[in-house]
């Protein structure tokens, strides 16, 4: 079998497991008791190990193996979750990532493997298992006073029994049941670890322990002998409990009752997270397609739509009914094709956001700052091309927020802020844009400092500065050749300024803006258009020009009799189905001359904006049409009322109405 065939699959799948490792370790760092996260990362490391082994990548496999060991020690609480161990694991993840992307850059793994090994003391997993087994911590049995009284009033022998099942045992709970059944002949079971319920649900490792009250004549060896003969029971260890008092745990009991409840909730949360992570794996039963291929498909489909429209217009001009009829299903298919392609191109912004928790953590650590990163709207979908491009600008802005924005924990405490700085990354739809915001509660940008720097760097002249408002001064950070930091820090001083960010965003037909308040923090606002969109709309005519009103906002199209029109506070309205609908003349709104002729019926498109309806009065309605939105570069002028342009079948341009803007003006 030629393994190179599986190379790509291996690469993409290991990428996913590395992501899971990253995510779960991040969660673990903030919540060190989160057992589910340890298990999750353990499973990911384990899978990676297996995959790499199958591929014959022994070094990768070994690295994953030592990671697995450390995670196992964490699980058994032989190691504590601290920054050191997390850093070490991240280092391993980074190396594995590098290995899967560009293996030639990784020179020697031995050093790292040794480092991990020495951290886990004596590496091999087998040893770990043995140790944890023989150490069988009797203090883990905490029993109530009543139970203790029963034990004390009985003259039986109290023993602990540790059972180790074979690694590949399938129905562990059934083996446990068989153990319990045999034990019935020897005495009474007091406690089982993990609980009976957990065992029943197979929520256990390959071992479990029993606190047992045996009959007075109990022979340890007999018990071992009977239990070891149960299939798939690997090892049995029986210890006599000498000092019953060590089981007493009165104070702890009360606490435990309470914390048990918490634990349950925790577990639910852990489960959520775990399901989410594993869902990510499952839902990824996908094939990967080169974006370029998708682009060319997209372009072909757009072309097809235009051509179809052209054919349709021929059919209409020559009244070819037969042709028109045959074109209808074709038009349906092309529409569906188009939607399908569009959807293929849309991806959630979480693809970009996902890497930020880790990035922010590392940055914060490097800069000795404490950061609480909040991410919102990660499901917001954007066109793939944009997703691919916004990563770097976002990283830069995040760096800025953490490096220049958020103060050190000490400084923050001094000014009465939480030690932890808040950095909020959010994405949401707004009209035809997707807005991405990066907000921090740091020290903000001081316009006076910007003024000084801008002059020093020759970005502006004194005269230009004098006429500028603070809010405009702040925007100078986007000017070419501007960098506010006097000393070049390791983090943001990489020769890239905010001007590069701005250029990049603008090349994506977007815009970037900033607001800031000294002492309160700054907000970067990126607006990205939903370009490449194709919309269904109604083509209308206003003053000899064609306008498209997007179908999604259209409620209905009516002919309004001028007699129906009333004036309420100088606003023309009509009454329809008990509600008052304001009328907007598109001629007036688009700065066209008013129509002089009197009309008996005014074609009006009723649109819905938010919860309100408006009537847009047009000259005439041409019909429903599907158009490809093209961005209009409006140079210096702001063109809010128009969402874009669309090229019609005859090559002329129709303007697409921005319904929100038209109606709110």
């Amino acid at each position: 079998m030629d393994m190179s065939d599986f190379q790509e699959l291996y690469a993409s799948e290991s990428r996913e497991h590395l992501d899971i490792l990253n995510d779960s370790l991040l969660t673990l760092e903030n919540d060190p008791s989160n057992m589910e996260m340890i298990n999750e990362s353990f499973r990911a490391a384990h899978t990676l190990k297996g995959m790499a082994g199958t591929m014959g990548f022994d070094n990768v496999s070994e690295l994953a193996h030592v990671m697995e060991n450390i995670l196992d020690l964490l699980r058994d609480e032989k190691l504590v979750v601290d920054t050191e161990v997390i850093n070490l694991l991240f280092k391993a993840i980074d190396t594995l990532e590098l290995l899967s992307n560009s293996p030639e850059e990784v020179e020697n793994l031995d050093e790292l493997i040794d480092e991990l090994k020495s951290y886990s003391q004596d590496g091999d997993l087998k040893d770990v298992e043995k140790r944890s087994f023989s150490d069988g911590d009797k203090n883990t049995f905490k029993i109530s006073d009543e139970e203790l009284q029963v034990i004390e009033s009985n003259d039986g022998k109290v023993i602990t029994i540790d059972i180790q099942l074979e690694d590949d045992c399938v129905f562990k709970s059934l083996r446990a049941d068989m153990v319990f059944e045999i034990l019935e002949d020897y005495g009474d079971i007091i406690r089982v670890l993990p609980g009976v319920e957990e065992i029943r649900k197979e929520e256990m490792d390959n071992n479990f322990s029993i606190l047992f009250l045996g009959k007075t004549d109990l022979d340890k060896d007999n018990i071992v002998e009977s239990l070891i003969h149960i299939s798939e029971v690997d090892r049995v260890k029986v210890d006599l409990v000498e000092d019953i008092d060590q089981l007493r745990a009165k104070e702890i009991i009360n606490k435990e009752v309470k914390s048990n409840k918490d634990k349950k909730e925790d577990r639910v949360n852990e489960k959520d997270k775990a399901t989410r992570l594993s869902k990510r794996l499952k839902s990824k039963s996908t094939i990967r397609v080169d974006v370029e291929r998708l682009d060319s498909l997209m372009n072909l489909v757009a072309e097809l739509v235009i051509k179809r429209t052209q054919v349709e217009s021929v059919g209409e001009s020559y009244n070819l009914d037969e042709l028109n009829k045959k074109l209808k299903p074709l038009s349906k298919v092309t529409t569906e094709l188009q939607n399908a392609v569009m959807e293929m191109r849309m991806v959630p912004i979480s693809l970009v956001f996902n890497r930020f928790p880790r990035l922010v953590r590392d940055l914060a650590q490097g800069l000795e700052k404490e950061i609480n990163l909040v991410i919102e709207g990660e499901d917001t979908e954007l066109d793939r091309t944009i997703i691919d491009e916004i990563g770097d600008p976002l990283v830069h802005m995040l760096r800025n927020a953490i490096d220049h924005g958020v103060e050190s924990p000490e400084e923050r405490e001094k000014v009465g802020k939480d030690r932890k700085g808040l950095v909020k990354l959010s994405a949401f739809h707004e009209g035809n844009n997707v807005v991405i915001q990066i907000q921090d509660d740091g020290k903000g940008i001081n316009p006076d400092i910007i003024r000084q720097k801008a002059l020093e760097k020759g970005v502006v002249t004194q005269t230009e500065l004098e006429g500028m408002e603070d809010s405009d001064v702040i925007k100078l950070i986007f000017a070419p050749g501007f960098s506010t930091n006097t000393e070049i820090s390791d983090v943001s001083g990489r020769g890239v300024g905010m001007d590069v960010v701005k250029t990049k965003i603008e090349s994506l037909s977007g815009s970037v803006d900033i607001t800031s308040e000294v002492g309160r923090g700054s907000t970067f606002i990126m607006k990205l258009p939903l370009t490449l969109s194709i919309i269904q709309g109604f083509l209308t005519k206003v003053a000899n020009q064609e306008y498209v009103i997007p179908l999604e906002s259209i409620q209905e199209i009516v002919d309004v009799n001028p007699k129906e029109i009333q004036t309420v506070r100088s606003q023309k309205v009509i009454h329809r189905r008990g509600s008052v609908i304001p009328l907007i003349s598109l001629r007036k709104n688009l700065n066209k001359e008013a129509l002089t002729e009197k009309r008996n019926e005014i074609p009006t498109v009723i649109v819905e904006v938010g919860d309100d309806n408006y009537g847009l009065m047009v000259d005439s309605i041409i019909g429903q049409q599907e158009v490809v939105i093209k961005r209009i570069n409006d140079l210096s002028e702001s063109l809010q009322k128009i969402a874009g342009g669309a090229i019609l079948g005859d090559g002329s341009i129709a303007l697409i109405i921005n319904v929100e803007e038209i109606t709110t003006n």
Partner: protein
Amino acid sequence: MAAKTRQTIVFDIGDEKFGVRITEVYEIIRMKKITELPISSKYIAGIINLRGDIISVIDLRRRFGIEDLEETEDTRIIVVDFEGQNVGLIVDAVSEVLHINEDDIDLPPKSMVGIKGDYITGIIKIEEDIVILLELSNLLRSKEKIKLQTEEA
């Protein structure tokens, strides 16, 4: 040693001749149907469909504050590159492509026929004509009013 030369496209607006570097020019097309935009700027004539792309078109007559002229056979749109995007300039006519010796370029006067020095890289005399070499990016970026003083006949 040969002097540096550059190619310049010369076009007419009213009675003046202007030049732009050929490297800034994307293409020259005949007048097309212009779609007006609902905006207040008079300089921006509207948008055109350039092989499926929509580009904005500036009326240089209006930009220079001289009265409109009915389009003629000679009217052209010069498509130039402005900050990475295509912009069309409506001109009365495109007359020639000149090879200019850089040494022949004179510095622009402080103000010339109403156009500020910022918009001019220099002037050059071609026989009895004066060609004003335009600094396109400054011209397109600015919103300032320009009044071309045409000599009264």
